[in-house]
């Protein structure tokens, strides 16, 4: 389920970083409130546990095996926000140290495995386990099962939309080349039939062991009604996000004057003036009177000089 670098185009990567940034911020703030001074060790050790769990193979009938993701498990134990952070740490380390999952696809992987798995797993567990928490085994199984399927579905949609979103002038795909109907079948079939039951069983067994050993889980049974409502919200979100990606028009906020006129009926005066200034400076990344390639090189040199100057200034201010 870890999407490597080079499978998703820049637009998709940017969208998922933009989606995850406020979620990471909110998770940091929420976790600070709930875990207080112990937040750092608890989160670090929970993340290390999930990392190790991901490395262990769970045996299944037929002599085969597979590793579990642990997103639902960590959310059940720590809560959804801490689960999100914990999974984010694990995914980052995996991408950095083991090359498991990409750096550019880190936003998308975090969305699938840290956000969707933690939240869907947590709220399903809260809804199914009941007020007294007696149905914990079934709840953990269903929560983990559904959370894996949700994450696999999101991954399939992200990969399957690439040929639509990112193709060259000839219509050839530039990144993951398979259409949605192929990615959905390829991702969902093994996950629904094999990996999700395995994740469900392993999670249920682990939660059962922890509860029997006197441990406790995060879910507060009294808030179950609220959590059910949030579950509906989450389901709506899961449906809406892939639809947003289908838009193949100009990205939000990158409209030209003509497009803006079509959208809102007029072009604001300030916008028109600024648009012309920018074009006069670097029209299409080039300069009038220069060859196209040379123009690109000069534009790139200017661009990199501007960025390095900005970093230098930031370094000076940071030092102070």
């Amino acid at each position, binding site marked *: 389920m870890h999407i490597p670098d080079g499978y998703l185009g820049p637009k998709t990567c940017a969208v998922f970083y933009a989606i995850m940034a406020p979620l990471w911020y909110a998770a940091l703030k929420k976790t*600070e409130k709930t875990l207080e*001074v112990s937040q750092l060790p608890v989160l670090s050790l929970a993340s*290390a546990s999930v990392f190790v769990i991901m490395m262990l193979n769970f045996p299944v009938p037929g002599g085969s095996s597979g590793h579990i993701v642990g997103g639902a498990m960590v959310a059940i134990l720590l809560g959804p926000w801490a689960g999100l952070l914990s999974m984010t740490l694990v995914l980052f380390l995996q991408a950095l140290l083991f090359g498991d999952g990409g750096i550019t696809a880190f936003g998308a992987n975090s969305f699938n495995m840290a956000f969707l798995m933690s939240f869907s797993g947590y709220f399903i567990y809260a809804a199914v386990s009941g007020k007294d928490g007696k149905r914990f085994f079934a709840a953990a199984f269903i929560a983990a099962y559904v959370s894996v399927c949700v994450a696999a579905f999101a991954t399939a949609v992200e990969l399957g939309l690439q040929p639509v979103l990112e193709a060259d002038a000839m219509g050839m*795909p530039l990144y993951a*080349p398979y259409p949605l109907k192929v990615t959905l079948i390829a991702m969902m079939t093994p996950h629904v039939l094999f990996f999700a039951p395995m994740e469900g069983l392993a999670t249920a067994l682990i939660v059962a062991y922890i509860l029997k050993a006197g441990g406790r889980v995060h879910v507060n049974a009294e808030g179950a009604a609220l959590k059910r409502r949030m579950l509906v919200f989450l389901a709506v979100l899961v449906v809406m996000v892939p639809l947003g990606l289908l838009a193949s028009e100009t990205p939000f906020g990158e409209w030209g004057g003509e497009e803006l006129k079509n959208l809102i009926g007029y072009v604001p005066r300030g916008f028109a003036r600024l648009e012309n200034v920018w074009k006069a400076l670097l029209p299409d*990344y080039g300069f009038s009177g220069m060859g196209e390639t040379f123009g690109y090189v000069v534009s790139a040199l200017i661009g990199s000089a501007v960025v390095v100057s900005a970093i230098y200034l930031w370094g000076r201010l940071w030092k102070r």
Partner: protein
Amino acid sequence: MEEMKLPEWMGEAKAVKYLDGIDVRQGFMEKNLLTLARFARGFVFQSNNAAGRGLLQSVDPSARIVGIGVLIVACVFARSAGEIMFAAAISLMLAVFSRVNMLMLLKRILPAFLLTLTVFSPVFFGFFSGGSELMGFDVFSARVALTFEGVRLGAMLVSRVIVITSFMAILFLSTAESDIFKGLSRLPVPGFFTTALFMTFRYLFVLLKIVEDAGLSRKSRVINPAKLKDTQGWFAFSVGFMVERAFRFSGDLTSAMVSRGFTGRLKVSKGVPFAIADYAWLGFSFFVFFIMARA
């Protein structure tokens, strides 16, 4: 006092002949645990040229991370085979001038190469692009053939992934783990995140050792490989046990940190300012990025 020496056979991992000559095979769980633990340690702590003299080693770790990150993003923007070859050439030059061990580099790239080649293999046969046939064969009544367009598209997709993986591998092989975390802490990443990341990395191997020891203690008491249900139960036990130990650890760790004055607020060292070499490296990375991202 004379140093005690263990007989050689005790150090051999596979002294597994039972009395009647039947192989006592390692159980499924034990075998996986040992293999994975060995792989993880070998992968992370393999000797590299992090401390040596080379191009990347002369750059500040945070500038190194940013520069490699920018080159990776540039590769994602590449839209033609020529641009990807350009990035591949940069990656090769970086590896050579940073004196990275080429065998280790290949070892790190190989899994990504094999995975991507497998995943994208239908692309080479023109299932999604069509095109003119290069060579093929008949399977029953269907024709399976490599097509020119398919091979071109497949090669581009696979090579992009390989080049990106090679940049990551070069970063890791030319930078010590501690420098990677130090470098990250100087970037505009929340201090909480980088500290938690470092602690996760440290305790990962402690927890791995706990599970490994649990596996070893079980192996020493059980001769025959266990049944499926038992191994599943043991998996749950060892993971549950590890999680429990982890939470207990975290309590002890919090007490230790609080006793040393930790109040929940982190102070991150700002390090030394960038040198000219760092700015030159960043300038080069962004130059490549702007060249590649022009489309």
